[in-house]
Every structure is written in structure tokens, then in C-alpha cells.
């Protein structure tokens, strides 16, 4: 049993007569502990794919088994619980709460997990130290650099010990030095702690971190192997 199993996943957006097949019959398996990089041109369906895996979105049709459980029929509350317990999201825009400190941002998933304030603080501080930000715990996002903000976001994604880390263009807003630092963190987490990691990226040198690459084009998977050839259309 794979950690993630997608079977004939279709996502369609309808505009009156028109319909766009954003995901067209995607079938894919991802095992526990894998490090996958998703590539493909803009609008090819990468984010939609990530959102469905992350239970932020639901497919129009098809089956999604997470840890062997069919989550495609789950209620909003059940999906929220999965996002809380099993998924750690990292976004291109960092998506930190601007009026909360780094520490409070990291605590956020734990609040919705119903964990006590004392335990929350303990866990959040521990994770912050892992991403090298112990000394910035009480800083607000605007007082942090882009790379630091993304590290806070990674800490937030990790704090509730998820089984999957999903990062949608996590380095898209960072300079190349910070990008590499962030990727090193993901790599280390995957290698040392076995977090299953899926990262969307445009950049070949970032994609090179992946031990498996999946390339999307017009809602279809056009390549799924150890290394996909660079597409000249990119």
C-alpha cells in the first residue's frame, strides 16, 4: 500500500458551455519517504494536483487513497482534520499571519489540534530551532527576510508531525542563495526524518533535488522518472 494513490483523478472547471480539464485522468502512486519534484509550464495543473493531495481541494471524479483510506468522499470537517494531522503545506507567498509572531505562526496548527498552550509553545520552539530560527521566535513576519519567513512556514508545516510535506513553488519568491538553503532543509528533513516530500518548481536546479520528477502538461503527466528531460517549452 502506497502512502498516496491517485486513481483516474479528473478536475474540471465549467464556464457555462466551456469546460477546462485542469487534471485529466491522473493516476499516480507516491511511496512513503519519497522526494518528488513536480514540474511543468504554468497552468498545466501542478497546483491543482498539490491541492488535491493536500485535501484543500476535491477532485471532480476519481479516487484518492491516503494511507489506504479513500478521502475523496470526506466531509469538510474530515478534510480539515487530515490537513491538520497529515499534511504540512508550504506556499510560494509564505502565507504567515502578519500580526502573529514567528512562534505564534508555528503554533497555529497545534491550536486546531487542541493542544494545550504550554505544550504548543514547547513544540513550536523545538521546531523553530530545527530550522535555525530560535532567536527569531518573537519576531513578526515583516521583521524577517524572505528566506527566514519561508523557514517559519516550514516549521509551521512540520510542527504537527505530518506524514507529507507539500511545497508549491517554495522558492519562487526567494533569491538563489535562500532558495538553496530552503531546499537543503527539505532534503535534510527527507533524508534524516523520512518526511515524504512533494515540491513544485520551475527551476531545473531546484528540481534536481528530487529523487523522482513528475512533469505535467495540459493536465496530464507527460514524464514520471528519476530525471525528466528539460522541456524546451519552459
Amino acid at each position, binding site marked *: 500500500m502506497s502512502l498516496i494513490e491517485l486513481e483516474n483523478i479528473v478536475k474540471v472547471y465549467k464556464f457555462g458551455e466551456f469546460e477546462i480539464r485542469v487534471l485529466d485522468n491522473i493516476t499516480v502512486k507516491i511511496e512513503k519517504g519519497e522526494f518528488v519534484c513536480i514540474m511543468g509550464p504554468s497552468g498545466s495543473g501542478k497546483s491543482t494536483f498539490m491541492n488535491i493531495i493536500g485535501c*484543500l481541494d476535491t477532485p471532480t471524479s476519481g479516487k484518492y487513497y491516503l494511507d489506504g483510506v479513500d478521502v475523496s468522499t470526506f466531509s469538510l470537517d474530515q478534510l480539515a482534520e487530515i490537513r491538520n494531522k497529515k499534511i504540512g503545506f508550504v*506556499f510560494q507567498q509564505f*502565507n504567515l*499571519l502578519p500580526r502573529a509572531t514567528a512562534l505564534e505562526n508555528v503554533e*497555529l*496548527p497545534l*491550536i*486546531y489540534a*487542541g493542544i494545550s498552550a504550554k505544550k504548543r509553545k514547547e513544540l513550536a520552539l523545538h521546531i523553530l530551532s530545527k530550522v535555525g530560527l530560535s532567536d527569531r521566535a518573537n519576531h513578526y513576519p515583516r521583521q524577517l527576510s524572505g528566506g527566514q519567513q519561508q523557514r517559519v512556514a516550514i516549521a*509551521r508545516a512540520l510542527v504537527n508531525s505530518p506524514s507529507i510535506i507539500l511545497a508549491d513553488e517554495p522558492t519562487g519568491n526567494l533569491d538563489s542563495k535562500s532558495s538553496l538553503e530552503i531546499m537543503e532543509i527539505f532534503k535534510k528533513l527527507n533524508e534524516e526524518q523520512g518526511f515524504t516530500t512533494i515540491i513544485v518548481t520551475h527551476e531545473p536546479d531546484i528540481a534536481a533535488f528530487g529523487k523522482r520528477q513528475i512533469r505535467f502538461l495540459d493536465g496530464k503527466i507527460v514524464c514520471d522518472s528519476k530525471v525528466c528531460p528539460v522541456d524546451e517549452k519552459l
Partner: protein
Amino acid sequence: MISITSIINIALRALRANAMRSFLAILGIIIGVGAVVTMIAIGSGASEKISKQISSIGSNLILVLPGATTQGGIRMGHGTQQTLTMADAEAIGRECSAVMAVAPAITGTAQVVFGNQNWATAIIGTTPEMVTVREWELLWGRFINEQDVRSGTKVAVIGQTVAEKLFGEVDPLGKIIRIKKIPFEVIGVLDKKGQSLTGQDQDDIIYVPITTAQRTLFGQTLPGRVRLIYVKASSLESIPQATEQIRTLLRQRHRIGPNQEDDFTVMDLTQMLKAAEESTKTMSILLGAIASVSLLVGGIGIMNIMLVSVTERTREIGIRMAVGAKPKDIRMQFLIESVFLTTIGGVFGLLLGIGASLAVSSLMDWPVSISLFSAIIAFGFSAFVGVFFGFYPAYKASTLNPIEALRYE
């Protein structure tokens, strides 16, 4: 499950972050609740005052005064002629079946002296029935009796105010006071009654036997004439009957022809007061309703602010959902914010209302009554307004699609 303290913390932080806006939203509720509390205080103060008067004046009381009520549609002063007699009073007591007790009265004011204290007060000459008619208890001693009236003894029953002014700490019973220099023995002290309808102090009074008053105090009164007659009907329902019986009887006795006007006036005080009570009740409901409109407007203000807040924080909502907030967690967060706003408004509104009521009471000399009831109303109402007007924005926030919310700029 998310803990309630966490949700409250989140809500408080959001409110603090927008302190000015929160304050303005609260202001609407403060004014609304303040208005409701003040109006209730004014309205219930007025009805309480009237209810008190009804019980203090004596229930089912009818007054018979000399002189016509109207002459050519114009209300005339009562008592300009002395048309009522002791015999009229006795006849009413004897012949009107709906009447329970009758007490004629001669009134005047006089200087009263005890020792080196002196005091000008109302002197009423009356008969023993007066205490029954006015439902007035004696604190000490006894009231005037038949014997006093028959022989015109110089005895006096004094009200609380007179007792205070003349005697202070001294026990008045058995003491001799001088009314118009004539010595009277104090035989009784009346219980406290408070203010009358017209705001007079009803305890500033001395009762003496009617015969004594006529002979020794108010010589200008024609013999046998009385200033007014107090009548107590046997029940509330029989007041109209009693009134009619008195009118018929007095017209007969005064030989008034079919086309002539009454030379007396029968006033049904209970009914007047009941009518006044009814109209104050209506007034307080009306005032309350008007005030509620401002609370409603305040509530709409809260809703407006909450909707703005939900829109502004769309991205925050998306982030919370992405890390595991359930729709009901989001709903609770905004609902608590809204209830918190209105409850704070309720507390300050209550204070404002109390302040305004006291101001009205002292500036306009209006009786106000601030009760626990108004406090509960203020609190309950404001919390209700918070839930009611906060629900839609909170519901809207909870149904946001997380992906779209995250994409919101």
C-alpha cells in the same frame, strides 16, 4: 477540538489590532443599550411612581368637591362655593349602596407650635372614617373617634413630617401642641405616606375632629358646611356605580333641576390614576421601542464591521483552514468577536444608561428606576445582537473555499 480560550484569544487579538474600528462599532451598541436602559428607567420610574400614588392615596377613592367641573366647557376652580354639607356626607354613607366609607373634611393651614418649635402645616378636620377611606395606618396612639367628633375635643393626630419638625426625637404622644394658639393633645401619629399626585408631602398634615375644626379653628366656614368629602367605594368594579349614586343623591338633595348643572364635582381618583398608569405603560413601551431602533442600528453597524473584517481577513481564514481549522472553528472565531464587541458595548451602554437616567432624574426631576431587570436586558440584548448580527459574517467566513481564500490579495 480547538479550546475555547484559544478562540477567545484569537478574537481579542483581532479586535485589538483594529482598536479604533472596534471602538466605533462598539459605540453604536453603547448608544443603543444606553438608550434602552435610560428609556426603561424613565418609563418604569414613572409607572412606579404612579403605582405608589395609587396605593398611597387609598384604593377606590372618590372625591366629592363643591362647585361644577365645567361651566360652558371651561374647568372652574373647585370649592369656590360651599355647597357640600355634613348632612350630604352622612346621606352618602347611609344611602349609597356601593359606598363603603365616607369622611367629610374641612381644610386649612395654620401655624403649629410645640415648645420653641413652630411649623405651618395643613389642618384637616374630619371624622373617624378618614383612616379607612385613605387606608392610612397609625404608627402610634389612636385616630379621632366618634366621641371626639361628638364633643369636639381638642385632640390631634399628626403626620410623620409634622412629628419630625415639631418633636424631633421626643415622643409626641400625649404632648400638647398649639394650633392657632389653641392647645391640642396629640393622640396619634400616622404612618408615612410620601408624596401625593401633585408632589405635595402628604405627611405634612394634622387631623383634628371635624367639629373642633369648625368651631375653633376655621370660623369662616359656614356651620355644617364641609370643604370636601372623601368616599371609598366598596370595590374597584363598583366605583362607577358609586359615582352615579352620589351624583343622583346630591342632585336630589341640592334640588338641581334636570337642565341645571351639578353644583358639585365627583372625581374618581383611582380611575384617573389607572388611566395615567396605562398611559405611562404605553409611553415606556413606546420609548423602549424607539430606543431599540438605535440598538438595531448599532447591530447593523456591528454586522457591517464584521463583514469588512471577514473580507479583509480572507487570506488569514484561508491560512487557518489550510493548517486544519474546521468551518465551525472559523465560525466560532468571528461569532465570538462579534459577541465580544456587543457585550463590551452592553457593559458601557449600561453605565451610560445609568448615568443618563440619573442625569434625567436630577435635571428634570423625573423619577427613574434602574433595576436588575434593565441590566439583564442590556446584557442579554447586546449578546443577542452580537450573535444575531455576527452570525451571517461568521457563516460567510466559514464557507470560504480555502484555495480561493489563500489566493485573495
